[in-house]
């Protein structure tokens, strides 16, 4: 049982967390033809945009209702209306994703009322879905905003599906939590397809943030979960929720469509991936063989990858044993990373995170701090490795500890849209990455 603590202080120094609206924006970027619209002042959008652009090295379509002093006093109704109309005219989105910020939540804009009035006065836009989510900056962190957005997406009625379409393959819903990178999501998609299933990934940031060249200039997200897919959510035979924070949207899907679900709090490490593939094979088998008489079938390539991972674990374990590692990551990513390292024989020296989560009580470490990078600096001294975002660079340097970059933002490494660290293959990559850092460290120590 891990104790969750937060230090009594009035100032956050070198913040680790980002705000809820940023998380919501990231989730909505995984919907196709979408423009995420921040209801706040210009800066709310600009800061989020700069952070995401630097992290992904991609053009990121985000919009703002551009609240001013006057509209803050009078209410944001006109700004919301004008922003939506402008977006419809200029960007022609298929979906508009609208969410609040600290400013408009403090002001207390009646968003439900504003949207109702908007719908009444613009019947011509009845077919345009507007997903709304409340994401005050003064509560929670990026992961919470991401989860809140996914919860609203699955609760939204996007209209009925085209019944004439006949599904050839059984469909499963993948709720892809904020711990997953675009590369991770792409890998999951591949795995599910390899099992002969049709993945409906929500949100699918692998289609929009994976870094690919389009032929035309994009005014909205270039890929992601399409409107048609969203209308097909009720067709899925099962929901696989990746990351504890995806439990609540999975529950919503169960309530709405009766779809059973399983939460996978992590997808890295041998056991976690085994469980995921086992579940996929059960889904496949249950269609033909409800009593599980036949042994589950797993595509041969994963048998091979599994053996490769076991070999990688053997090769790398010399370097992980008794290493002390300090982590500063959002809860879901912290959980996945901490357990993976623990299962390699490393010791978690310190864990710092951004926001509350039930999963924090089950970490392979005595206590976890909800805090900032100043807390990490105080706790990490003497570690062999720090795993955190790029902002931890200067403290790692100060403490003479190598930094492995994970989380958001990573602005001084390439390939954040491409890199994947889940599945057997991703775990292998992760173990090699970290193992190589330890080898380098050993060598430099021997040279002294």
């Amino acid at each position, binding site marked *: 049982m891990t104790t969750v603590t937060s230090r009594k202080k009035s100032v956050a120094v070198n913040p680790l967390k980002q705000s809820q609206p940023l998380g919501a924006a990231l989730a909505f970027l995984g919907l196709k033809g979408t423009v995420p619209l921040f209801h706040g002042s210009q800066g709310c959008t600009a800061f989020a945009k700069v952070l995401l652009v630097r992290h992904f090295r991609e053009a990121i379509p985000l919009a703002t209702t551009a*609240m*001013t*002093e006057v509209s803050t006093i009078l209410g944001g109704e*006109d700004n919301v209306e004008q922003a939506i109309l402008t977006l419809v005219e200029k960007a022609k989105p298929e979906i508009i994703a609208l969410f609040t*910020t600290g400013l408009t939540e403090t002001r207390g804009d009646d968003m439900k009322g504003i949207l109702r009035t908007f719908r009444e006065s613009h019947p011509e836009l009845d077919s345009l879905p507007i997903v709304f989510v409340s994401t005050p900056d*003064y509560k929670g962190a990026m992961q919470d905003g991401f989860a809140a957005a996914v919860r609203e997406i699955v609760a939204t009625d996007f209209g009925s599906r085209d019944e004439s379409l006949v599904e050839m393959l059984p469909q499963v819903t993948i709720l892809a939590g904020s711990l997953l990178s675009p590369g991770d999501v792409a890998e999951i998609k591949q795995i599910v397809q390899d099992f002969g299933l049709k993945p409906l990934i929500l949100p699918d940031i692998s289609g929009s943030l994976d870094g690919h060249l389009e032929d035309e*200039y994009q005014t909205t997200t270039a890929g992601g979960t399409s409107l048609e897919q969203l209308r097909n959510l009720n067709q899925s035979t099962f929901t696989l929720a990746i990351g504890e924070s995806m439990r609540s949207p999975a529950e919503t899907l169960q309530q709405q469509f009766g779809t059973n679900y399983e939460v996978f709090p992590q997808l890295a490490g041998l056991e976690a991936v085994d469980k995921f593939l086992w579940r996929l094979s059960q889904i496949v088998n249950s269609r033909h063989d409800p009593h599980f008489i036949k042994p589950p079938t797993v595509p041969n390539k994963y048998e091979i990858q599994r053996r490769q991972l076991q070999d990688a674990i053997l090769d790398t374990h010399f370097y992980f044993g008794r290493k002390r590692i300090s982590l500063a990551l959002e809860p879901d990513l912290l959980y996945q990373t901490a357990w993976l390292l623990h299962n390699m024989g490393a010791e978690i020296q310190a864990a710092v995170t951004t926001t509350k989560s039930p999963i924090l009580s089950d970490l392979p470490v005595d206590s976890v701090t909800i805090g900032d990078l100043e807390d990490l600096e105080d706790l990490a001294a003497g570690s062999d490795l720090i795993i955190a975002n790029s902002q931890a660079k200067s403290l790692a340097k100060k403490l003479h500890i190598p930094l492995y970059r994970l989380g958001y933002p990573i602005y001084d490494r390439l390939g954040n849209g491409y890199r994947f660290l889940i599945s057997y293959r991703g775990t292998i990559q992760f173990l090699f990455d970290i193992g190589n850092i330890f080898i380098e460290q050993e060598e430099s120590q021997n040279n002294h």
Partner: protein
Amino acid sequence: MAFKQSKVAALLNEPGCEHNHQKGVGKNKACKQQAQPGAAQGGCAFDGASIALVPITDAAHLVHGPIACAGNSWGSRGSLSSGPMTYKMGFTTDLSENDIIFGGEKKLYKAIKEVCDRYQPAAVFVYLTCVTALIGDDLDAVCQAATQKFGTPIIPVNSPGFAGTKNMGNRMAGEALLDHVVGTVEPEYTTPYDINLIGEYNIAGELWGVLPLFEKLGIRVLAKITGDARYQDVCSAHRAKLNVMICSKALINMGRKMEEKYGIPYIEESFYGIADMNRCLRNIAAKLGDRELQERVENLISEETAKLNQALIPYRSRLQGKRMVLYTGGVKSWSVISAAQDLGMEVVATSTKKSTEEDKARIKELLGKDGIMLQKGNAQELLRVIAKTKADLLVAGGRNQYTALKARIPFLDINQERHHPYAGYVGLVEMAREIDEALHSPIWAQVRKPAPWTVNSYHVAASIG
């Protein structure tokens, strides 16, 4: 609301700003422009205030608001320091729901104490944001109490994001400096050649390409406002003989008010390109009114330009006649044109969205009759113009980097996120090198090359045959 609305109105009507001089005559109302919901892309007033003040390197910058303002932005500014690194840290009161209900003043006071105790900054700049302005926290009172209690200057910066654009935030930063910083400390000594540089933020270390020139000339930069600044220097800025406003209408209120209050004249200059750099040095010498200094300037100019011409020879032939679309704001909308022309390049279009009438007149003069002046700008418009003018290169801010790259067009970053210094004589060589590299990279053919199987069948057949 605790922050002063009358002040916002006054800043919007800044008389030193060209945009206002032309009110009623010219059509540009850039200073008064309100951001358009759904279309606006820029930063907010808090963003602008941070841009202008964070480069004070030995100060702590404490953001009083919920996590978004600091959490999403801290540490990302491109201004460099030759010493202290306190400015690169992120400090915020990270307000929770309870703080918003019960008020954030106590927490702010404690936060200031904790920052002073642990990090001993030369000063703390405290930024009021949207939420803390809205809940009515009395920033000035807390800062005043804290200054007295902790013996460290605590400077209130009234910069709620909703008060306006980045430009407005720059001015609010200027007001904070005028009200609480400038004039609070006497310099150890003064010389007849003391100047302040205002509006230069040492992005990518640009100042370091220019400061050696001043040193050679015997001109002392008393205060850099604010690139690579130390707090004390800004305090004593009121003893300078001349204010040199660099590439910025944004802090024009500082120039004007320091003239009113301390009798310091100001000139507006640019460090980009040979012509502008020469003019800048000549104007400073003329204003400081010293024949010997003017002679030294002439000598330096001929020395530097000779050296520069030599250094540019390998690039000139490679850049000759290449066509550039320039998309930036204010002074840069014309000063970079002159820099490009120094390199033998042609600017086929430039933006005038944030330019004053005076800027526009200069642009017209520099562009020639075929040059396009872009009034409005979004990515699509920009791509249309690039296609129409058959431009070889887009020079713009980081925000448009992916507009260019995704369209497979060479790009040079000219704004605050850039990594290379382009100011001064050495900066022009750097710019030439960067443009050359961008234009002549072997990658362009590859990223534009269609897959062989998408080429029509005749070609395929021919290549097999």
